[in-house]
């Protein structure tokens, strides 16, 4: 595999110009949606710092010795915090980095992997370049081979994720991998990971999960208190903000939500179609799907994606507070409730989405498939069958990291929203008779 490309200043400048322009445009579109809560500003600022200002993430964060990159939600961030480092989730939606990565990764690979490779090559995103180490769970074929390809440009630690998770022996595989990770992180940061530091890590992430669970109660409200695109931005910001800061900002957002609820200040209308997005990750700046849904008159009531709720909805449950007990709790938490389709048996994803449909009063599902993301595509058929039985319309939208398909997607999403409206109207009419 080729090493890093040699870019001249001009190429880097062009890359940065184009990349920041796209990020700014999506950020502005998201902010322009009505009902932006004031408390979301720090989250938008975080995204702006990473993708537009290209800021050094370590500024003002001296308590962290290093930045450790992760390429999936299956890496326990508690473990990284325990090593006094800050986790940075590097799954990106950058169109410009994607076009750079396209030269190094096979044509049919997924755009997310290409974008990561693009950043590895161009060295223009401080958030990426500052990571002294990248932990790359071997989940799908593309990430597996990406781990091998990135080796030439970054210090990579591949982590084996078992394809089955039913038996204890399967979880043991992941546990062994986490134990393998401990000395690597210790060496990287020079900090010993102890039972105490693990407990601290659990507390840090646990608080974020608690605020998230509070927020979810507000998100379920019908009519909606907050736009789904804003929520996606908040969730994406978690990738780049230290958990403590994110938690504090989230607490403020929850207070604002409470106040909105009391004042009955809604962003959604009573009969606005409530839509759930599931499927391939929606990573900033590629937030075109949530934006299109809400620009076309729908409300993104829930999401079942790894860059969204999935990363934070289950806290680590510690039964034995010893070091091994906590490590086991991580192994369990990061595999068992995970609804990623890389697992052979992923029927729990259907149950989870059904649960979300009920709780969030969802009327339609947008199934997002990134081109080349085969594992999600495989599960579409079963979703279609299951939600067909429940009379919940579902639409599969395939997309890539470019803006060429936006108009086509807009028409399809608009038609889908119209369909939901008509269906609700017919139901209402039938009810009156």
């Amino acid at each position: 595999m080729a090493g890093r490309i040699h870019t001249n200043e001009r190429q880097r400048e062009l890359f940065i110009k184009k990349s920041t322009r796209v990020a700014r445009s999506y950020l502005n579109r998201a902010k322009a949606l009505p009902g932006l809560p004031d408390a979301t500003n720090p989250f938008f600022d975080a995204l702006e710092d990473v993708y537009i200002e290209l800021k050094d993430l370590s500024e003002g964060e001296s308590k962290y010795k290093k930045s450790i990159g992760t390429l999936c939600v299956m890496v326990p961030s508690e473990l990284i915090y325990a090593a006094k480092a800050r986790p940075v989730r590097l799954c990106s939606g950058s169109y410009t980095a994607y076009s750079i990565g396209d030269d190094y990764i096979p044509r049919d690979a997924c755009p997310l992997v290409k974008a990561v490779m693009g950043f590895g090559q161009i060295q223009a995103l401080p958030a990426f370049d500052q990571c002294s180490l990248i932990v790359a769970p071997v989940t799908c074929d593309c990430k597996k081979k990406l781990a091998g390809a990135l080796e030439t440009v970054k210090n990579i630690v591949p982590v084996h994720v078992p394809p089955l998770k039913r038996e204890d022996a399967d979880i043991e595989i992941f546990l062994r991998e986490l134990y393998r990770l401990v000395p690597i992180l210790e060496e990287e940061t020079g900090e010993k990971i102890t039972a105490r530091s693990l407990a601290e890590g659990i507390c840090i992430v646990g608080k974020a999960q608690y605020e998230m669970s509070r927020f979810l109660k507000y998100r379920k409200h019908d009519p909606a208190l907050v736009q789904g695109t804003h929520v996606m931005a908040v969730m994406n910001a978690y990738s780049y903000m230290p958990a403590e800061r994110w938690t504090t900002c989230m607490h403020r957002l929850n207070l604002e939500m409470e106040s909105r609820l009391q004042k009955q200040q809604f962003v959604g209308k009573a009969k606005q179609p409530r839509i759930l997005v599931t499927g391939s990750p929606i990573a900033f700046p590629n937030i075109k799907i949530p934006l299109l849904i809400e620009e076309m008159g729908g409300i993104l009531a829930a999401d079942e994606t790894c860059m969204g709720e999935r990363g934070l909805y289950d806290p680590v449950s510690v039964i034995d507070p010893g070091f091994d007990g906590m490590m086991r709790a991580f192994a369990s938490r990061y595999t068992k409730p995970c609804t990623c389709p890389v697992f052979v048996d992923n029927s729990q994803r259907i149950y989870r989405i059904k649960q979300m449909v009920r709780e969030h009063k969802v009327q339609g599902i947008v199934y997002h498939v990134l081109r080349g993301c085969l594992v999600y595509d495989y599960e579409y058929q079963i979703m279609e069958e299951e939600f067909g039985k429940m009379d919940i319309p579902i639409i599969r939208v395939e997309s890539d990291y470019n803006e060429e398909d936006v108009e086509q997607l807009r028409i399809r999403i608009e038609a889908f929203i119209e369909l939901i409206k008509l269906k609700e109207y017919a139901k209402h009419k039938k009810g009156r008779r």
Partner: protein
Amino acid sequence: MSDFTNEMKSSNYEKEITNALQRVAEKMPYYQEYRYFEKIVSNHYLSVSRNAIPKIIVLGSGFPEELIVAAGKMPYWILGGSRESSMWADDLVPRDTDPVSRSSLGYIKSGLGKNALILITLVNDSSRKLAYILKSTGHKVQTFHFPPLKDADSIMEWNRQYEACRSALAFHLKKPITKRAIQKAEKEIRYAKRRIREFLEVCEGMIEGTCRMFVLNSYYCADDLSEWSNHLKRLTEKIRRERKYKYRVGVRSKVLLLGSPVYFPNYKIPFLIEDAGLTISVQTDYTTLKMQSGIWQERGEETNYYFNDTSPAYVKNDSFYKQVMRVVSENAIDGVVYHVLKGQIEYDFELERFENLFEMINVPVFRLETDYNYQDVEQLRIRLEAFSEVLNQRRYSKGELAV
């Protein structure tokens, strides 16, 4: 589905098999010893449309077969090379699924997997999702996954799965699989592998690459492994005898066929390569290399076996790279055809590394991407002919061919 549709499907499938058999037979010199291989391949593939009900089905060539041989059975291998069967699964898988997975699923859905225990090696995304589809439709499935990192933990994991498969097989066949039986099976497989290596040594310059592939492919069609080995021995001896006075130094450019494995009856690429005036001097893919390598449970050899495994299922496939370097050093080749089946992305990821290797030794690499359909045949033919011309020109300039 109506009987008429079923009949149509099975007649198209039979046509595909018989056409491929016929084309291979045309390329093969008339050896009586060869007929056995034709017969077993024909029986194996045509049994699908004759309502065969195998007890054990294996998807993929990476499964430790000694476990099944030890149980007194030969597995019914489904390698997934049929265009027709891939169409049977069209509605069940996403558009971008690779044709091997499509074809394998098509075979099982045709009714073949009704009462069988289906053993699936989890080497890529499609195999994982296939296992899920089959499990959720009520099939008995046992998986065997290849840990993607080669370390001591992975060997432990491999051993655990080996034992789990042994128990599942014993339970399904209602017959214990003893250590002694496994040792006997290993002996039988080792014998077959020795015969394969001998066969490969004598083939060069005597039979065409497609015929060599076909004979090797027949391994996965044999009902009786000892019988197959003995027939291969006879064929090897015949070729060796003939070699003394029929061996000819080829004038055609020699290519190494690398990348996605080619499975019968989808011989589109080897046929095209030979039609373009090239000789497939050697093919190096996972299945072919595995047929020549050792066996997992050879005592004390576990580490060796695992570390030398060449499956693309690993993060870094260094052992495959080393094997290719060995093959290149042992065979004089003029060019490389890198075959990528659409959807088999792992092979595409590995291409760049091989391109660099062959660039260093000044051997041109030709990447072709295809699936099981015939729409691209003419385009591929033109490209391969051009590649053949390039190779010939290079040989002229080196003085290997007379002007």
